[in-house]
């Protein structure tokens, strides 16, 4: 199965969630019908059409490309419900009211064709109630698919099947959301809040209660409850601001209304007068006038302020407590052990939350893996609750819980002195309710380096990269340095990899499982080398990278790069030098060197031009491809998705896109093996470039930008060096220059820029603030 059984989808309800789900379906290249009610008699599709229009302006963008937006067909429930007959899956994402949902299902039952899956995105209503009164056939095809906001970016989907749900239908939807939508389905039981929101709501409540009761400031609360716990650094109050304060009472009511009376959440749920007051005054969080934090722009300034939980007054956000040592590096036991507020507050969050999390297996989901996956993928926690317990130690946690009179759930008793996860025979195993350990099963076809690493040693490794045998004659090159930065160690390993693969393997895949493929060369190292005037070392680094990438390009075996997340600078250039790219849909690719006052130095200039020269749609002559590459590089353009990267020429039309992050390696490997059949390396290109007259034209264009205030003085300097490379230096259109010559030109101009004080200032600023300096 490949998810192909679903060829068209209907999403009903064009609110934030419904529209976002529709966009993601479109992102997968699948046509989608988006319906909502008729609100305006003269413009009957206005609600759905408005939602699409709004999404085209939203950041972060729900659509991966403009082409995707065109796959969304808008309509209204009154006129267009019959079109559901054309669809293989209907997702209901309308208002959370049982009667309205039931009413819709009744209508749907009449128009849908047999076998079309129907799912609800409800987060609060039990499945049994939803299908009450429907036919058996409808019940067979019905399930809950609970997406997380925003649907494009959050990887979790909670799948809830009812007792009547047909296994085939559930599988069909599961395959589709996995392979096409790129999500990770986690099976949940039909219990209130399912998994993530149940724990998440409890966790937020516990943290807010404790901060108020203990007199902990919101700044301190977020500093303690955020990063040290592996929770996004917004912490808890920052998170509430993000999702909206007004959602809090709503979530609370829905859970207190549906959970049993003896559920621990009932005891801690309470309404906070301050939060109610804030909501009533329009302080609903980031979407409103602010929340626990706000930006005060009085007097033209921009001051981040935080609220005082006791008085309700805002004051400039104070520098929070600082947490150092092991506690700052993920040692939760050490965090709790810190005397005073830090340790006490950390425990006030973790103790109840971990206890509660352990108590909902199997009621909410069958295994601990489901709980951990849900929190990691749905709330972006670095570790799930059971992984956290392993780090504290189950025995120690039990002791602490007992001392505080908090419940010690059954599974926490059962695990004894052991851990919830272990590595056995090269496989990761989890602890089951049956008291046994079981292998963690990946979905079919998923190949992860993480798993390969458990059962094998690297073929080669050094400080910045490693090589892994990923089976079937394919080797993976992994970047392992900090932030996957590229340096001479990586280049060295590429050299060794080429020898090894040539001798013993069929193909090479460049792949890693960091949150970003690579943000490019190690800038800090480069700046340090600049600062100590180690010019020859820097030139060696540039030449070393050019040589390594060219060696990859002309190696006697295929090289497939498989990026996910950012692939910038040198991380982009390795893609450009690969035979093929298999990109994760969420790939942000670009040559961003100009932002730090330099130009691509590892062959990126020539390669990007080649992409445009090969493009059949480009006009003839030496200038168009040059101008296109110049525009993309000089503005440091970064693609907003893999689809967008294709528009910029970073990806070829033949390069593949994988929606599910976990399937990227398998797809890249398959592509590499496909290419390995009868592989011949490419012929080195020759460039016919415009020379000085082209340079003059490009400079004129830059001056235009400068005159309009769109480019700074130094942008002009940097882009002049870039233009000199792209136009081929002193060549003219009657001559051709070799790839080698172009690389030498690239190197020379690169080196000139590294000596410029304003380039040095740009690099320093980027390293220190993470933002470009517009000098």
């Amino acid at each position, binding site marked *: 199965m490949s998810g192909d059984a679903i060829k068209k989808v209907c999403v009903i309800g064009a609110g934030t969630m419904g529209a976002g789900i529709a966009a993601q379906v479109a992102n997968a290249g699948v046509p989608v019908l988006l319906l909502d009610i008729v609100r305006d008699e003269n413009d009957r599709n206005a609600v759905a059409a408005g939602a699409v229009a709004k999404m085209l302006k939203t950041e972060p963008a729900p659509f991966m490309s403009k082409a995707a937006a065109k796959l969304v067909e808008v309509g209204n429930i009154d006129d267009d419900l019959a079109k559901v007959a054309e669809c293989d899956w209907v997702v209901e994402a309308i208002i959370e009211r049982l009667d309205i949902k039931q009413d819709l299902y009744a209508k749907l039952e009449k128009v849908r064709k047999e076998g079309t899956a129907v799912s609800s995105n409800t987060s609060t209503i039990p499945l049994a109630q939803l299908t009450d009164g429907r036919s058996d056939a409808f019940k067979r095809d019905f399930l809950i698919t609970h997406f997380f906001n925003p649907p494009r970016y959050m990887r979790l989907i909670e799948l809830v099947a009812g007792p009547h749900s047909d296994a085939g239908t559930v599988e069909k939807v599961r395959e589709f959301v996995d392979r096409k939508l790129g999500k990770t389905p986690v099976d949940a039981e039909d219990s209130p809040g399912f998994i993530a929101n149940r724990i998440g709501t409890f966790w937020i409540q516990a943290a807010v209660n404790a901060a108020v009761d203990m007199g902990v400031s919101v700044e301190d609360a977020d500093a303690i409850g955020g990063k040290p716990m592996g929770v996004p650094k917004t912490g808890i109050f920052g998170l509430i601001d993000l999702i909206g304060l007004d959602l809090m009472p709503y979530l609370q009511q829905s859970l207190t209304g549906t959970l049993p009376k003896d559920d621990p959440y009932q005891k801690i749920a309470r309404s906070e007068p301050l939060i109610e007051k804030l909501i009533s005054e329009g302080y609903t969080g980031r979407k409103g006038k602010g929340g626990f934090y706000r930006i005060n722009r009085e007097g033209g300034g921009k001051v981040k302020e935080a609220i005082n939980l006791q008085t309700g007054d805002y004051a400039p956000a104070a520098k929070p407590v600082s947490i150092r040592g092991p506690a700052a590096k993920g040692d939760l036991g050490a965090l709790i052990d810190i005397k005073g507020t830090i340790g006490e507050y950390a425990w006030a969050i973790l103790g109840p939350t971990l206890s509660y999390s352990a108590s909902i297996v199997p009621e909410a989901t069958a295994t601990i893996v489901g709980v951990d996956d849900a929190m990691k993928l749905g709330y972006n926690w670095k570790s799930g609750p059971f992984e956290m317990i392993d780090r504290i130690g189950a025995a120690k946690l039990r002791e602490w819980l007992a001392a505080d009179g908090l419940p010690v759930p059954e599974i926490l008793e059962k695990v004894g002195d052991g851990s919830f996860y272990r590595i056995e025979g090269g496989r990761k195993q989890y602890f089951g309710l049956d008291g046994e350990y079981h292998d963690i099963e990946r979905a079919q076809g998923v190949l992860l380096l993480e798993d390969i690493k458990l059962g094998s040693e690297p073929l080669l490794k050094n400080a910045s990269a490693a090589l892994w045998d990923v089976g079937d004659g394919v080797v993976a090159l992994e970047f392992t340095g900090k932030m996957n930065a590229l340096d001479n160690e990586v280049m060295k390993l590429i050299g060794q990899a080429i020898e090894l693969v040539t001798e013993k393997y069929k193909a090479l895949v460049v792949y890693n499982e960091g949150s970003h493929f690579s943000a490019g060369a190690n800038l800090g190292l480069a700046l*340090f080398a600049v600062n100590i005037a180690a*010019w020859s*070392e820097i030139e060696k680094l540039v030449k070393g990278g050019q040589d390594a990438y060219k060696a990859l390009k002309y190696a006697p075996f295929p090289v497939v790069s498989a990026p996910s997340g950012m692939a910038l600078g040198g991380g982009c250039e390795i893609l450009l030098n690969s035979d093929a790219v298999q990109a994760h849909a969420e790939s942000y690719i670009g040559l961003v060197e100009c932002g730090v006052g330099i130009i691509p130095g590892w062959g990126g200039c020539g390669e990007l031009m080649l992409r445009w020269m090969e493009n059949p749609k480009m006009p003839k002559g030496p200038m168009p491809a040059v101008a296109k590459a110049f525009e993309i590089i000089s503005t440091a353009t970064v693609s907003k998705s893999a689809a967008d990267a294709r528009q910029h020429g970073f990806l070829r039309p033949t390069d593949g896109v994988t929606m599910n992050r976990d399937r990227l390696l398998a797809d890249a490997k398959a592509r590499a093996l496909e290419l390995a059949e009868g592989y011949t390396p490419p012929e080195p290109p020759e460039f016919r470039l415009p020379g000085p007259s082209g340079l003059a034209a490009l400079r004129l264009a830059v001056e235009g930008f400068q005159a309009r205030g769109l480019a700074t003085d130094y942008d002009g300097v940097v882009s002049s060096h870039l233009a000199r490379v792209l136009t081929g230096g002193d060549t003219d259109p009657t001559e051709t220059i070799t790839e080698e010559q172009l690389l030498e030109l690239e190197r020379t101009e690169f080196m000139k820029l590294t000596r410029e004080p304003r380039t040095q200032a740009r690099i320093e600023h980027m390293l220190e603030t993470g933002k470009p300096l517009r000098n």
Partner: protein
Amino acid sequence: MQVYEAPIRDMRFVLDELWVDDGFGDIPALEEFDSDLTSAILEEAAKFSREVLLPLNRSGDEEGCVLENGVVRTPEGFKDAYKQFTESGWASLAADPEWGGQGLPERVNKLVEEMTCSTNLSFGLYPGLTHGGAIALEAHGSEDLKNLYLPKMTSGEWSGTMCLTESHCGTDLGMLRTKAEPQEDGSYKVSGSKIFISAGDHDLSDNIIHLVLARLPDAPAGVKGISLFLVPKYLPNDDGTPGPSNGVSCSALEHKMGLKASATCQMQFEESTGWLVGEPHQGLAAMFTMMNAERLSVGIQGVGIGEAAYQSAVWYAKDRLQGRSLSGAKYPDKPADPIIVHPDVRRMLMTMRCYNEGCRMLGGWVARALDAEKHSQDPEVKARATDFVALMTPIVKALFTDLGHESANLAVQVYGGHGYIRESGVEQYARDARIAMIYEGTNGIQALDLVGRKMGQNTGRLLRSFFHPVSDFIEASKGDGPMKPMIDGLEKALGALQLSTATIAQKGLKDPEEAGAAATEYLRLFGLVAMGYCFARATMISDMKLAFGTEEKEFYDAKIKTATFFFERILPQVSANFLAIKAGKKSMMALSEEQF
């Protein structure tokens, strides 16, 4: 015999010739200090040092300071010398004109300081500390405090101290115990004991203004809980004259190895009234304003002593007749040749000469950066000058004082047995010079400051202010001319420094002990390369002067020969430093504590 003639020609070389294109551009504010004016100042300072300070150096060492009836008495003649010093305006030379100073650029002031240190280091400490205290007060004090104290401290009527050290804490100031209790009138009652307080009490000035580090009642533990207070010996009257005693007393004088005419006191503060300088708990930062200035001045002490030791050794090497030259008698008419004919004596004299000239040149560069930092109109230049001063401060302090002490030791060696005898005067240099390697942050701490703080700051931005000009100079000077061996040598030495820098930065990031283990050798390596750069520049200028014709042929010729000695006989030490750095900490940390 203690012999000293201020090396004015060499100083003028540093001031007027060597750094004309120092990269910091023109500074209009300093234009009035032209060559004529600065020459006159240097001549006068030379005269004062020779005639007033030098004669008191030996006697002051013999007599020392005395604590009698709770009052410290300086050696005979000091009081009068101090009076002349302040009345002639030497005390206010470098101070801000706003408070009655003469605003002399640091590039000149540091040369005057050198003369003072050459002729009477003990004496120099009294006005030196006053100047440092005034800088801290100017930077962090309230307007009221400044108006009341700065004019008198500037003129030298009142002197100053810095009270940091306590018996249980020196380097680690976080442990200090002296406390300050807030009073209703906004003042504080300061109580506690301090040790090693230079110029803590004496009879030279009408009042003594102590800058005291102490803890407020609500102070957090450690260095973040230290505040700075101004505590006068006598509380000033409304008319500005010294009034009643303020509970500040000297309980004992330290018995020291050298620097005997400087009163180093144990001080008691008993509910002494003081005023906060700067913000609460920010005392260390405020004190560091003064520390950095002081550290550069301490470096100059090294050059000062080195120069005096060198001159005294040259005098003796020419005067002492003993044995014959290895290549045959040079003075057959005399009973023996002067010992200056011997290669090993030459080795010592040349080494001292190189140290002094090299440090003076390097100090001159840093002093110009100090001026640019203070007066330049160009923010980019100002920032670069600030970087450079921050980078070079630990190097100037540690390198200059290490070499100054080495020079003093070499002078004792040149004198042979007589050098070990008090009357010769040179052993005093060795004793006096020794403290400069210790106070204001030991040289070990300076090296840690360099590798731990300065090296990595802003991804090595501070380094740029040194490496770029040196690298540019090498690139611009390459060629087959007479300078070739020197430029090649400098390039190699710079290469060793670059590689060491990269190695330490990389290793130190993972293991701070690696940086610590390399620190001292690295600082020396850095310093030697910096001196090499100075000598190469000096040679280039001298070559040019000789080529275009000059009446000072001897001077420039000697400069080139000295530089050549430096490149051939001293700079190669960088190879040893480099190898030691490369070896890392392993053998240094290998013994267990029990094995010691």
